[in-house]
């Protein structure tokens, strides 16, 4: 691996990015799980790492954390070259990978004591505050075998906090949580970001990621295909307008005949009009005017805000069609 990144390869800990990878590749025989990944995660934000099942999300995280080796490429965590300065980099990283599992015969506190002992001496003092922060201090002396899945997730987050991390990497942290637990987890992630920490959230729950994250990367078949702030990415998606009117069929004909470049679909809730990327709000008024002047009564006309989910499906569908 060659050190060609923009971070300091000597491991000084500086750098603009919390995570930086260049050409990162991981193969399992013929299967390329991580394919030439170029990933830049800014410091101090919540960053979503999205992809369908089997896209290579967890494998990338495992490579970043040194749980498995990379076949090619360079990577930096908090500006430290990994794996060369892995010990220094991981000193300020906390992570949950896959389902968090612990020694079932020990209590939550004892499990954290084992992990704290592997970190710096100050980590021992963070055990109880970490348990309190994730809301399981009252169950700290119960055996982990008696914990629910949601409590183990919380214990996993507590384990992450032992190192006073600047970067947290959470792989599907909402798994097994009930709605209240998901809300708590979301609040906790936001509070961690508010403290200036970076949180990388790997998930397939797009709605949760949209509510929690500032920026995302989309991975498909091991390759990062889009990344950036959510607002910018959604701004680049098509402009959707929903219309309920007296004559949908004629309205559709009118709209397709105009130079709007509209793609019209008729459904149970009326017309779904899809306009090209970059269309501004004036288009709504233009549509209304066109229909009224054409003698069609308009009952409802609504701009549909693009969601991360619709954008994700649009992008992955487009990629599928291209291949």
């Amino acid at each position: 691996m060659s050190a060609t990144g923009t971070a300091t390869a000597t491991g000084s800990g500086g750098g603009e990015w919390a995570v930086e990878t260049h050409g990162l590749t991981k193969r399992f025989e013929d299967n390329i799980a991580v394919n030439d990944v170029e990933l830049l995660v800014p410091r101090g934000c919540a960053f979503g790492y999205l992809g369908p099942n089997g896209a290579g999300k967890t494998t990338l995280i495992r490579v970043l954390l040194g749980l498995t080796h990379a076949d090619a490429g360079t990577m930096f965590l908090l500006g430290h070259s990994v794996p060369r300065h892995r010990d220094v980099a991981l000193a300020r990283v906390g992570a949950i990978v896959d389902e968090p599992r612990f020694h079932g015969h020990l209590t939550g506190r004892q499990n954290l004591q084992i992990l704290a002992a592997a970190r710096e001496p100050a980590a021992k003092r963070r055990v109880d505050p970490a348990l309190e922060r994730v809301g399981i201090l009252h169950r700290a002396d119960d055996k982990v075998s008696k914990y629910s899945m949601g409590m183990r997730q919380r214990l996993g987050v507590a384990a992450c906090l032992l190192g006073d991390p600047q970067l947290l990497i959470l792989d599907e942290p909402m798994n097994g949580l009930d709605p209240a637990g998901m809300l708590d987890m979301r609040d906790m992630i936001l509070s961690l970001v508010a403290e200036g920490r970076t949180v990388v959230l790997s998930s397939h729950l797009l709605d949760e990621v949209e509510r929690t994250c500032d920026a995302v990367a989309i991975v498909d078949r091991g390759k990062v295909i889009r990344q950036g702030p959510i607002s910018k990415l959604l701004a680049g998606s098509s402009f959707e307008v929903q219309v309920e009117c007296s004559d949908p069929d004629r309205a559709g004909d009118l709209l397709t005949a105009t130079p709007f470049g509209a793609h019209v679909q008729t459904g149970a809730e009326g017309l779904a009009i899809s306009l090209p990327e970059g269309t501004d709000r004036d288009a709504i008024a233009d549509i209304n005017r066109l229909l009224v002047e054409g003698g069609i009564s308009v009952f409802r006309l609504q701009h549909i805000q693009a969601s991360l989910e619709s954008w994700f499906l649009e992008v992955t569908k487009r990629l599928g069609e291209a291949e």
Partner: protein
Amino acid sequence: MTTVTEVGAPSPSPAPIRAEPRGDHRGSWIPSRGMVTTRCMELRRRRGLMIALIAVNIGIPVVFLGVRLISHAVDPKSYGPAGGYSIFTTLVTGFMYVFGFVVAAVVGCTAGSVDLTEGMFRHLVITGRSRLALYFARIPAGLAIVIAMVAVGYTIVCAVCVFAAPTQLNYDGVNVPVGLSQPALDSWAAAHADEVICDFNFHGGAGLNGPPPNVTCGGQSIGPPPGTVIQTKGGGTFTVPAAESPAQIRAFAVTVANQDYADYHSNFLVPSTTLMVEVGLWIALEATIGFMVGLGLSSLMGQRTVAVILLIVLELILTPIFSRHVISHLLNVQRGIVGVAMAHIEPGGLPTPFSGGGGGGPGANPLIPESTLASSLVIVGWIVFWTAIGAWRMRTRDA
């Protein structure tokens, strides 16, 4: 496929870059004291494992000695003393040596595999701590438990064998002076002929010209009644006389005493302090080997059950076979078995292990030949090899 790389910096106030944690040597292969103590705590909290460890190392010797103490106290004529040399050697070579290895191996296999099977290995690797340090922390933690258990069990055995050894030997129900030489025991037997004939074990056969004399023991006559015609081995006949002469009775008693001298002698002896210290170290070394091999093998395999089975097969089946039966083409392989090497360095004065504590008897095969230097190298080699294998696998394993 288009890749958009326009990544902004959404947060205006990223966290200040913190200094490296103080007092942190996580790149070092030397584990911290905290790592060792927490690892020890993790093993100690395994209730099933600890029960097995205590039962084998402490419980079974205590029960065995306790039963003997009670039996001897209740019926000293039928049951020998609880302590003494022979009990010591029987317990040490027949039980503590072999099962101490097996239990230590189980602890080693547990220490080497549970982080992986219970999902903690990944958490530990993510701390950034050297994987070697994670591995080496298991060694003092596991040995602290294993050696402590062995020491407690062995101390109990030594204490009973020393303090419960008889000061006046009640041998087969007869009070016999302690520490007699064989001629002295013969003289004593001649002087107490009826007691010897009535109460000492009589094995028949060699050195005797006829059946036991017809004497009265506890109001009952033993031996064939006078006038009985007995077929001898040579094909002739022998007629039991109406009454044996005192000389015949004394001669018979001396012969019986001679037969029982070895047993009498071993019952009387107390293991010496030197022997007890040497045997203690020998058993501790055997337990250490069991732990280290178990740790390395289970780290290599990534699981406990198969590793434990392999080590039990090695200790209970392969080692006894290979220690006594020379297979000419495999002689050096046989010498390379750690149990064989350990048998070669056993302290003098003990019966050879793998022979049921009795030295294998006069017809048993001797141990295959091996020098002390070669035995020592084999033992060191096993410890170093399995430690290196386990550490290597720990370093290279995907978490």
